[in-house]
């Protein structure tokens, strides 16, 4: 699990751990305006959190970008589902 590996600071009224704990809510747009501003103030004054936050965001973005390029389901899947529905309806 990730840990803070840089000198901990209090900036914007938040410690680095506070920022780390709020990163997902920040990324997902789930923080109220005041809390969002506090995170941004902290990040502006803390290189460690700025770097970690960028890496966190980059990893989440890369996961989506990479996995959305997955191959389409095989055509046989639809055929299998139709056969299974046929069997299901035969039983009814």
């Amino acid at each position, binding site marked *: 699990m990730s840990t803070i590996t840089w000198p901990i600071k209090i900036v914007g009224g938040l410690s680095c751990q506070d920022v780390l704990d709020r990163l997902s809510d920040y990324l997902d747009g789930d923080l109220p305006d005041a809390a969002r501003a506090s995170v941004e103030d902290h990040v502006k004054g803390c290189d460690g959190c700025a770097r970690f*936050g960028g890496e966190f965001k*980059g*990893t989440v973005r*890369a*996961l*989506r970008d990479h996995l959305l390029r*997955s191959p389409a389901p095989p055509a046989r899947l639809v055929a299998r589902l139709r056969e299974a*529905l046929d069997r299901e*309806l035969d039983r009814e």
Partner: protein
Amino acid sequence: MEPGILEQDESDEALVRRAAAGDRSAFERLAARHAAALYRFTVRVCGGEREAEDALQDGLLAAWRGAATFRGDSAARTWLYQVVVNACRRRHRRRAGEPAATDGEEAAAAVAIDESGPEERVAARQAGRALEAALAELGAEAREVLLLRDVEGLSGEETAAALGLGLAAMKSRLHRARLDLKARVEARLGHAIEEIVG
């Protein structure tokens, strides 16, 4: 207006209602509409193409049988994910005892795609492989939440509903999963995937 145009525009919820009344073609249309996303999710959660096909078929059959139980409290898409998540979990429980690494290896192989391309894509390919491998190493609960929220783009509320969790519990699980994924990707790559935050 032609009937075909009306059918194309039919909502997921309307298709579920018709399926509940025994309309098989409506169900097949619903399944076809979401097949690619459900398959993408199932391959990663269940581990490999073959297992994913079986789980997805189980899940879609369960959805067909249970269409009448759809209450419309959540979107039909969320309900479909919920049914497929449960099918994956059932199959996973049945397979309990098999080496977990098999899941990841098969899943990684299943999604391998031809990425031959220009040199500037080498780093992206390496990051992609690291992401695949790190995701496969995670527990099923972490994979589920990452795939639904971060890959398939379900909202927080939809993801929580699909996983049978409260919103706060889902958020907590998602945050831990993202941190875990980041650490594992970095351990594999030897560096982080960066982006500007703020």
